[in-house]
């Protein structure tokens, strides 16, 4: 939505900020209220990057708001530091550093643990400000006498010492903050943050170091908080200690939720509503302390009924008004494929495999150097024990480069566990895995993916709120940029080779027509192809596929088998599936697992005739 007109949002922001002083006074906003809205809006930009884009709900942003404000105010009042702007900047840096340290601890856990830890840490800051550091921060009195900014231009000196002139400073700060944030969310880093929000496990599995990205997001949010905190002190001429209270964090969360997340402007809208209402209820309706009760009720109702805040609500209405044209335009795969008998399917599969592959196969990229010529994967004595249960027992497994290997076995044979061990999602109890000549036992799933070994999942693991193209972009980015890179100001389309790789993958998995549809709107078969596409987009040299045909219609299965055949050229594949007819057509060798052990290994024809395999499947009744 934002991509087509590059500077539209920036221009509209600037226009809005210029218009505000001429418009808002007529709506009953005092200049002081407008200034406070800007400070909270700026505070919220960082918080939206953390919560709306990365999915990390922190209830402890007051720590950084207070830290930034106190450092700036201390410099300006106690140390008589002359320049207001650089003092605010120093405060911002201090908040970012503190954010980094806090993030190291808080990000050890996710979800509600993360929320609880941020609350607790912020409370520590509050108490430290009040007691141990009271000599520096003024304790419960705060730091009074924070000067307003002045700008020496050589020929004249601009003083920003009234609410109206301060507006100019705050508006410029907000504008700069917004422009920077827009760059960040449009950068590869922003894309990865959204992927982490939607599905952190998959984001890690396609090769992104999600911990570092989360920490980045946390530090960005802390920096914005510190920046806004510094401006708070300047705006009020006084740095209040209650910047550190839980109420501050809470108010930020509330305003962001009211305004809407994921659009960067949400906190500004939320702050406008919140601060206007609180002024209105207190001064016009004379409700006194009851204003907070009213706003609390409003907030609860809003969370209950308007899920995506005001901006989300407006967007939903807009989409309703335009008839959801984008979603309706292509409801492809609508016509049901004719039913197929097993025999028809078999011959269709056969015919499909005989055809030349439609798209150019995508080259696998080797990242470990070309000197190694042994088997691409060599697992020795792999064992995985869960308490008393032996899921995998002493498995020796070797796959040649370029081979297509099938793995079959009855339910509970340990196939999926085996795959999880190979991709390093779980660590084996004992045994060793060598991939492309390198011992990968105990490495992380992210590092292994970076080496060129990845998996498509049995249950779809997609980035639900992103489009098909964005999904594949996430995966391709990991391969093109490595597992962590701070290119926060680079625009995604400018990354060399990215567009080609994504387009190519789209063509391979036959989703070109559906590229800009959000995942939620895809049919099951399309989601399944995207699942394979996600693994493929990082151009792995060894691709594991966990039941790629599961749940598909016969027609879809034929298409998928064709797809798998075409992508297998130039790469090694290991496929688990229960559809033996299709699998035996596709692979060159088959390994049969039973009760966590390798039962037998051989060509499809050998396996078909093997008595032990028939017994494993049929439980002792020898097939005629």
């Amino acid at each position, binding site marked *: 939505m934002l991509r087509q007109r590059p500077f539209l949002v920036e221009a509209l922001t600037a226009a809005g900020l210029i218009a505000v002083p001429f418009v808002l006074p007529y709506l009953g906003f005092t200049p002081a209220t407008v200034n406070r809205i800007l400070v909270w809006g700026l505070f919220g930009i960082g918080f939206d990057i953390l*919560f709306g884009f990365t*999915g990390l*709900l922190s*209830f402890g942003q007051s720590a950084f708001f207070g830290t930034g404000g106190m450092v700036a105010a201390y410099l300006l009042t106690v140390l008589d530091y002359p320049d207001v702007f650089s003092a605010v900047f120093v405060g911002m840096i201090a908040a970012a550093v503190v954010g980094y340290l806090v993030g190291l*601890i808080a990000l*050890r*856990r*996710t*979800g*509600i*643990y993360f*929320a*609880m*830890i941020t*609350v*607790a*840490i912020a*409370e*520590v800051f*509050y*108490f*430290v400000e*009040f*007691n*141990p550091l009271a000599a520096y921060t003024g304790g419960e009195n705060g730091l009074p006498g924070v000067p307003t900014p002045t700008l020496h231009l050589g020929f004249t000196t601009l003083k920003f010492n009234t609410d109206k002139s301060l507006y100019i400073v705050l508006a410029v700060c907000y504008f700069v903050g917004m422009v920077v944030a827009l760059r960040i969310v449009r950068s590869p880093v922003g894309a990865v943050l959204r992927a982490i929000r939607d599905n952190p496990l998959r984001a890690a599995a396609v090769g992104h170091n999600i911990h570092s990205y989360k920490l980045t997001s946390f530090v960005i949010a802390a920096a914005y908080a510190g920046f806004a905190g510094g401006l708070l002190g300047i705006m009020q001429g006084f740095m209040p200690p209650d910047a550190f209270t*839980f109420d501050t964090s*809470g108010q930020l*969360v*509330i305003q962001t*939720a009211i305004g809407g997340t994921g659009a960067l402007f949400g906190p500004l809208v939320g702050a406008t509503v919140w601060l206007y209402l609180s002024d209105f209820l207190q001064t016009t309706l004379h409700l006194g*302390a*009851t204003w*907070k*009760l009213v706003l*609390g*009720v409003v*907030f*609860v109702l809003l*969370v*209950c009924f308007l*899920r995506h805040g005001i901006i989300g609500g407006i967007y939903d209405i807009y989409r309703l008004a335009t008839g959801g044209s984008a979603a309706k335009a292509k409801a492809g795969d609508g016509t049901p494929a004719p039913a197929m008998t097993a025999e028809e399917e078999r011959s269709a599969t056969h015919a499909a495999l005989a055809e030349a592959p439609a798209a150019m196969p995508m080259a696998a990229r080797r990242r470990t150097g070309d000197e190694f010529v042994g088997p691409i994967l060599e697992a020795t004595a792999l064992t995985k024990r869960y308490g008393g249960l032996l899921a995998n027992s002493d498995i020796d497994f070797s796959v040649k480069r370029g081979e297509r290997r099938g793995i079959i076995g009855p339910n509970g044979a340990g196939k999926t566990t085996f795959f999880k061990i190979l991709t390093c999602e779980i660590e084996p109890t004992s045994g060793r895995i060598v991939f492309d000549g390198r011992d990968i036992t105990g490495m992380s799933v992210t590092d292994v993916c970076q080496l060129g070994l990845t998996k498509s999942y049995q249950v779809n693991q997609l980035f639900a709120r992103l489009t098909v193209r964005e999904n594949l972009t996430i995966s391709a980015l990991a391969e093109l940029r490595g597992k962590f890179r701070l290119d926060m100001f680079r625009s995604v389309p400018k990354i060399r080779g990215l567009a080609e790789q994504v387009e190519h993958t789209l063509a391979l998995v036959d989703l070109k027509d559906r590229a800009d549809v959000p995942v939620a709107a895809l049919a099951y078969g399309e989601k399944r192809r995207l699942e394979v596409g996600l693994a493929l987009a990082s151009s792995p040299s060894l691709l594991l596929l966990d039941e790629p045909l599961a749940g598909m219609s016969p027609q879809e299965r034929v298409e998928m088998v064709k797809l798998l055949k075409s992508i297998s050229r130039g790469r090694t594949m290991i496929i688990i599936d229960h559809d033996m007819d299709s699998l035996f057509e596709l692979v060159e060798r088959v390994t049969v697992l039973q009760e966590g052990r390798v039962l037998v290994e051989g060509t499809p024809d050998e396996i078909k005739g093997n008595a032990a395999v028939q017994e494993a499947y049929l439980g002792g009744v020898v097939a005629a």
Partner: protein
Amino acid sequence: MINWANFISQCFNGLVLGALLALISSGLTIIYGTLGVLNLAHGAMFMLGGYAGWVAYSYTGSFIVAVIAGSMFVLVVGVVTERVIIRSFYARTPEDQLLVTFGLGIVFVETVRFFFGSLSKMVPPPPGLVGITPLGFMFYPTYRLALLAIVAAALLALYVVLYRTRIGMIVRAGIEDAVMVGSLGIDVYKVFMLVFGIGAMAAGFAGIVNAPVVSIAPDVGEAILVQTFVVVVIGGVGSFPGAVLGGLIAGEIISITSMFDPGYSYVMLFVAMTLVLVLRPYGLLGTAGRE
């Protein structure tokens, strides 16, 4: 030089505070474990218990009635809240659940402020438990000793409910695997409602029995909520024994640090929490996969 009498007395204070935190945290942790909802209004439940008890006390003058009324009121508030609001949030994101319970907390606190003002209220201890008791090596406020016994009895009652009754078995099973419990043909919604009520009541009960020690005010629950979080992080989410252990540890840390400098009590609490997070990320008695 440490004053030993003072030290022992602070250790006792820590024990009392710890037991109280253990009780409140147990409520929070069984709600989270069973329903999957972190109740940010839990501190407000503590506060509501205190106020409901105080109202009952002002009318009857009986401490026992106050305790019963306070607990029952919060039980009802918990059940109604679950039925009317929380239930529609099971299908929504954990973030939405946090937001709505956070909002509810504000509504509860501000409603109380609306009716009773911001000034703190005091409930005196029952007549037989006023004054101090000689313990041989020191004198200690009688009510605090009684409080220790009361809270210990409440914890024991909670233990019996959780480990010796059918409903407790369902709750513990639900903490391990809520989906599985649902598929066994148990009406999970009824269980959820009851658990939310009991969990809230644990906080409300703590709120009223603590009222003779620390006077009640509308925002008294906020600090309690933060301490409860630390307790749960230390003990491990969803673990009743973890909540008890974490509560006692947190109580002792706060009390003993306060003896030297109250300003550092949170810092020490935080250090303990960080240590646990580094050494045992799932809490002392927690297990992986409960978040």
